[in-house]
């Protein structure tokens, strides 16, 4: 994490955080209603890398993240972090959700220090200093005493990012965290997020249904199949870091995008043939953006 506040011995810098997902499957419902959501899904979150998962709408992305976070258990297959299987949710794998899960009855600062506070780590002063340092980085320092409802959508997401980061997780998982933000805020959030990642190099998993966002952020892009979801293709995104939005007009970027679009198209068409219109709409939107360029 950040060097300034990293006490010796916590060893959180470049520290493992390798997650192995092996042949997991997940079903929901019982009897004739039983449905397979995830099918024999295998991939790796490499230590210190930002992995982006992308797939058609409704393909089971959120189920996948719930499995990795430990909120649900797979029906078969294993999930390990640095070799040991996961047991339920833990502070080594923190999730930032689509909907904000900030406690509305706590101020920005109270929300951020909640984790270490309930675990009884460090004293209050030290914690608040660290929290303020992180809040400062994401431009929220002067909003420390505001409640979540008094913050804009973008600020809430930044606050949530900080609330997760202060716990020094080995793995950060983001479940479409910028969904529902307006275009400007979204771009800003992507920049904040990329900057934080490039500073701390935690293992990151980012789930999205937006291709542009996916390629802009990723070291590795994993494309999921339509439901039941499994990892279809892994594309190593070899764009230079630190990144900014200028890369969106480079040839390399467009090449990756074209490549990924073709695979997504196939998956979208499969989804369409089984009746998911939303997946196709997602695809067509992404496609029209490419044509416009």
């Amino acid at each position: 994490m950040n060097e300034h506040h990293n006490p010796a011995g916590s060893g959180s810098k470049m520290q493992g955080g390798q997650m192995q997902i092996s042949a997991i499957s997940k079903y929901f419902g019982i009897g004739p209603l039983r449905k397979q959501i995830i099918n024999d899904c295998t991939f790796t979150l490499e230590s210190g890398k930002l992995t982006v998962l992308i797939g058609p709408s409704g393909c089971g992305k959120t189920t996948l993240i719930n499995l990795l976070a430990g909120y649900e258990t797979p029906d078969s297959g294993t999930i390990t972090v640095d070799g040991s299987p996961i047991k339920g949710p833990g502070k080594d794998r923190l999730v930032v959700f689509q909907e904000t899960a900030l406690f509305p009855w706590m101020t920005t600062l109270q929300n951020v220090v909640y984790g270490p506070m309930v675990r009884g780590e460090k004293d209050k002063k030290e914690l608040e200093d660290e929290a303020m340092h992180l809040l400062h980085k994401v431009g929220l320092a002067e909003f420390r005493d505001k409640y979540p409802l008094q913050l804009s959508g973008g600020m809430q997401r930044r606050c949530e990012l900080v609330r997760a980061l202060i716990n020094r997780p080995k793995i950060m998982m983001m479940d479409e965290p910028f969904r529902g933000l307006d275009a400007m805020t979204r771009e800003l959030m992507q920049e904040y997020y990329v900057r934080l990642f490039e500073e701390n190099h935690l293992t990151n998993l980012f789930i999205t249904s937006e291709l542009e966002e996916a390629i802009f952020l990723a070291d590795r892009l994993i494309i999921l199949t339509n439901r039941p979801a499994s990892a279809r293709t892994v594309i190593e995104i070899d764009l230079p870091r630190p990144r900014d939005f200028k890369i969106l007009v480079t040839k390399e970027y467009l090449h990756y995008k074209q490549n990924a679009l073709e695979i997504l198209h196939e998956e979208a068409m499969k989804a369409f043939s089984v009746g998911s219109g939303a997946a196709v709409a997602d695809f067509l939107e992404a496609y029209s953006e490419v044509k416009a360029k």
Partner: protein
Amino acid sequence: MSAISLFFFRTKLWLKSPTPYLTLLGLTLLILLWWLTTEVWQLPRFEKLPGPVSVFKEWVSKDPSYGISIYMPEYYGHIWRSVLRVLQAFGLATVLGVTLGLFMGWNKIFKDYTFPVMEILRPIPMLAWVPLAILMWPEREMAIIYLTFLASFFATTLNTLLGVESIDESYFRAARCLGAKERHIFFRVVIPGAMPFIFTGLQISMGVAWFSLVAGEMLAGEYGLGYLIWNSFILVQYPVIVIAMVTLGVIGWASSAIIRFVGTLLMKWQTRESS
């Protein structure tokens, strides 16, 4: 901006809006209608009712014909007895109701035991409890407080339970994920999360407390506003009935306003813009 200047600014805005004048107009119309039907036109069946002029005269009289006016200590004695009963019953209902509601929402097994019992007892109208209440308690006073307590208790418990159940699952997830123990979740998630519903419950509870109190006092009381209303009816002191009714209205409104005020103070996080 300081709190005081903000208050003046808001008051000024309020005075510029049509709201206060419409409020005043509504009240005036009500009193006018009452005055016309009872004292001016003296419509059939209305001519026996006390009109606003006679009620007002009695209310502010230094030497009231029926012994109840703002100058008479008896008037405040009745008010005080009623307020005291409501405070005791409401306080007890709040402590027990909130505690029970929180635990019912928190523990599924406990809820399975208690909820059906609650749901059968809750719909029984408070008046149906009167005979048993009189038999159960050695003193009338206790019976009245018991009756006042009952309805309040059910309203508070049910709303607290709904409050806990209304808390989004994602807050529990977030708390557990961050390493919170059950006791942290109870005090930092369950209680504050249920707070908006609890306060809705307390407002309802206060309303039904006054309702039950008056019914209880009419049947079994020796003091209090409910007793005053019934007794004045028997003694044909009609203006006193209306004085007691209006007094009940004002006190009931004030007690709800106090609860709302405390609620807003405790739940600043619900306001979107901060002042």
